[in-house]
């Protein structure tokens, strides 16, 4: 049984056909410009205020556009970019250690296991250096050396130190920078900010994105907002798994609704499972917490050599420990890319060598680093992370090795965009984690912040200007039949959710969905498992619409209703992820099909059949989705088996 139909290939990504280092210059030169005096006559909706959305809002407003911006949180400063810990990559080569734009490009394409679009990755690497300049000018307090110059460190999958950081809170500092820039534009009247307001649907008129339907989460009021273009900066969809390192309210509804309106969804099965998270402690667990990858610079990962060894870690002598990453991958050691580190941890636990409750954990040990550097130096580098670990587990990592286990962290898939970051719906642009563009099948550490800010500060603004300058915008009003219909659909959906009054809570459905996804579409995926999931998910969706219980009304704060609406979309998206994972009969990056591995258990790609991005067109509720392939060409970084040994 197949689960999808095959459509036409995607022929044109709009990347200019010139040498790669000239493409972005050429695209910007070819782009049409909007006269500064005319910009205020054009309005742009931006949904989300994370790094990509916040940066885009501030920049477009500085340029003179009228920005209407939304976030579901009570303040634009709270978007989940804030939780990124480790750092941001940039090809500054301040260390003189052989870094360059080309090397950052090369590392990212290779790290993504040759499933990213070369043009986009090269542009990302080019833009990276400007981001650091911009952030420093805004007052982002990056870590500095005693010379007063910026410090950098090394991250997974990389042999240069190109990661700029602000202790273990880099995402927070970058987001506060973008938030402050946005605040300045709000104060100047250039940005109309709607907090505690959630997008329910995208308004498409004559084939172009012209607005959104949104709900005020305090009053329950459903309103329409109209503009010349819509930018989705709504983050990833890791919460499909229920347990992930995402914020509790991070959701996929904006991108899923846009997908249902015609935007292709690319590579939905590319999920990043982060190797260093705090293991779960019980059934009540509501989320998982990441311990930054930067810890792998100094922490050593090990398990007991003997399966079922229950001695406390200090009782296990050196000779009976297996530092398995250092053993299997001597070249990169503890700093192999995330997908490899996660799978290795799972393999050790599958062998019965896992530690902690349920044997689902491995040690991340700082004893050597403390001996080598002293406790003070370790505290200065990682103090806040150690504190966080202590608070959650009640254990002191200065004395007892941390226990870590992989958890869902980031989604490389997202809405398909062309080189201009425009989706298949003209006028609907997608930035940051919400799009699929730069990381292929696996994202390297410290590259999410880089991509979010590159998209928001530098890539989107000229491309959005080009779109506005290239089109005429007839005035649309709320009375337009397409607007009315979209509002009615959104309202009807919420009314339906409130009226079911069944016997199961929203969270019970979400947990069950998460378990199915983790078991069958998590770290290891098999044909049998995915088919099983695709049998169960439609049943679960029907059960949800038959028996979910959403208390309260729609005309007040109703957090159950908010969750129910999000989970209803996750249920559909989960199915598409499984279809994508089933169709991709190869292993690449974070997508590991057990049928496609090398004799020593590494991911085996099938470049002859799968060197493409899989962009899915919505086929209708309960109908088969349609696959469009964007062929990927590797003209610069030649296809090769990744080797980190």
């Amino acid at each position, binding site marked *: 049984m197949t689960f999808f139909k095959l459509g036409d290939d995607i022929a044109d990504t709009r990347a200019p056909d010139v040498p790669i280092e000239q493409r972005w210059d050429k695209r910007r030169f070819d782009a049409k410009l909007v006269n500064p005096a005319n910009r205020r006559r054009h309005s742009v909706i931006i949904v989300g205020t994370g790094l990509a959305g916040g940066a885009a809002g501030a920049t477009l407003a500085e340029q003179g556009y009228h920005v209407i911006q939304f976030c579901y949180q009570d303040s634009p400063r709270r978007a989940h970019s804030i939780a990124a810990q480790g750092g941001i990559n940039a090809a500054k080569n301040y260390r003189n250690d052989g870094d360059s734009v080309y090397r950052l490009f090369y590392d990212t394409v290779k790290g993504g296991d040759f499933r990213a679009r070369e043009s986009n990755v090269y542009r990302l690497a080019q833009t990276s250096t400007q981001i650091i300049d911009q952030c420093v000018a805004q007052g982002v307090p990056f870590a500095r050396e005693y010379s007063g110059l910026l410090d950098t460190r090394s991250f997974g999958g990389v042999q240069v130190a190109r990661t700029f950081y602000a202790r273990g809170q880099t995402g927070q500092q970058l987001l506060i920078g973008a*938030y*402050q820039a946005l*605040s300045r534009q709000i104060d100047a009247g250039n940005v109309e900010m709607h907090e505690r307001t959630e997008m329910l649907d995208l308004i498409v008129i004559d084939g172009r994105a012209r607005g959104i339907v949104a709900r005020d989460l305090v009053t329950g009021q459903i309103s329409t907002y109209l503009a010349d273009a819509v930018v989705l900066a709504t983050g990833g969809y890791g919460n499909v798994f229920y347990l992930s390192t995402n914020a*509790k309210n991070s959701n996929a509804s904006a991108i899923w609704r846009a997908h249902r309106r015609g935007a292709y969804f690319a590579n939905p099965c590319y999920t990043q499972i982060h190797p260093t998270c705090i293991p779960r402690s019980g059934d009540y667990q509501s989320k998982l917490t990441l311990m930054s990858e930067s810890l792998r610079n100094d922490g050593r990962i090990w398990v007991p050599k003997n399966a079922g060894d229950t001695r406390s870690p200090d009782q296990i002598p050196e000779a009976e420990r297996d530092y398995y990453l250092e053993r299997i991958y001597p070249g990169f050691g503890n700093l192999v890319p995330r997908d490899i580190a996660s799978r290795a941890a799972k393999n050790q636990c599958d062998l019965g060598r896992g530690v902690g409750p349920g044997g689902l954990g491995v040690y991340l040990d700082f004893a050597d680093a403390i001996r080598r550097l002293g406790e003070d130096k370790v505290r200065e580098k990682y103090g806040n992370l150690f504190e966080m670990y202590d608070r959650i587990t009640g254990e002191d990592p200065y004395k007892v090795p941390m226990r870590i286990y992989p958890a869902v962290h980031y989604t490389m898939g997202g809405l398909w965009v062309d080189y201009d970051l425009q989706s298949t719906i003209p006028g609907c642009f997608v930035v940051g984690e919400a799009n699929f563009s730069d990381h292929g099948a696996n994202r390297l550490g410290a590259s999410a912040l880089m991509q979010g800010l590159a998209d928001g500060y530098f890539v989107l603004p000229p491309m959005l200007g080009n779109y506005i300058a290239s089109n005429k915008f007839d005035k649309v009003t709320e009375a337009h039949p397409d607007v009315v219909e979209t509002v009615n659909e959104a309202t009807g959906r919420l009314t339906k959710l409130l009226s079911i009054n069944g016997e199961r809570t929203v969270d019970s459905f979400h947990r069950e969905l998460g378990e199915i996804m983790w078991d069958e579409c998590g770290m290891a995926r098999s044909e049998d498992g995915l088919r099983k999931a695709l049998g169960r998910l439609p049943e679960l969706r029907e059960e949800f619409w038959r028996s979910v219980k959403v*208390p309260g009304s729609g005309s007040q704060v109703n957090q159950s209703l908010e969750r129910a609406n999000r989970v209803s979309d996750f249920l559909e998206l989960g199915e598409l992820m499984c279809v994508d994972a089933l169709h991709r009969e190869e292993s690449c990056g974070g997508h590991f099909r057990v049928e496609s591995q090398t004799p020593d258990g590494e991911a085996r790609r099938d470049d002859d059949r799968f060197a493409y991005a899989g962009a899915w067109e919505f086929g209708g509720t309960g109908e088969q989705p349609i696959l469009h392939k964007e062929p990927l060409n590797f003209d610069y970084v030649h296809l090769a088996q990744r080797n980190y040994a």
Partner: protein
Amino acid sequence: MKLTLRIWRQAGPADSGRMVAYEVPDANPDMSFLELLDVLNERLTLEGDDPVTFDHDCREGICGSCGVVINGQAHGPRERTTTCQLHMREFADGDVIDVEPWRSVAFGVVKDLMVDRSGLDRIIRAGGYISANTGSAPEAHATPVPKPIADTAFDNATCIGCGACVAACPNGSAMLFTSAKVTHLNSLPQGAPERADRVLNLVEAMDAEGFGGCTNTGECTVACPKGIPLDSIATLNREYLRASLGRK
């Protein structure tokens, strides 16, 4: 663990509100405080009651969304800990725990434990930024910043805007929040050109939002989950005086 929660219930801004007691017989020491509320809410939902509304998001102590007063203390008994990072191992079996929203004139209750903290955003909008349009930045190494200054800026920039300082202050003052931003930006060479206007505008906005005056009681810094020091308020006062005297 068996716990009794006495929770502030208030249907909306117009409601007068009341404490309501709930038994939670199945608490676990490894649960976070918000997970305890989740467990209670699941039960309330199934019993046909209205679940308790509270703000939360990242649940790792950095977004600043969560925050309730627990037994009279903002974010509860553990130092430098947000409500989401507070675990039930800090409590004993049989405890009765009072749970209330942030209490302050400038923070209206939206529903139950959820309050309106938008006043803090408006303080930032009044000048809590460095004006640097995208694309205008000089090369990052053009201006070295001595490490102690960068560290001071960073320590103050770690503020998560949760509002615990305001909730803990007997005057409902937002001085710690405001001073953290002033100290962050005014310490840095990049923040120097707007230094005087920044402090004057932020303090003016703080007053206009209805936050109280500072009388140096120091409750704010004790409640602060990020440990913003009281020194920052001294820095703000110094900056304010300097700006008021017109010295640039």
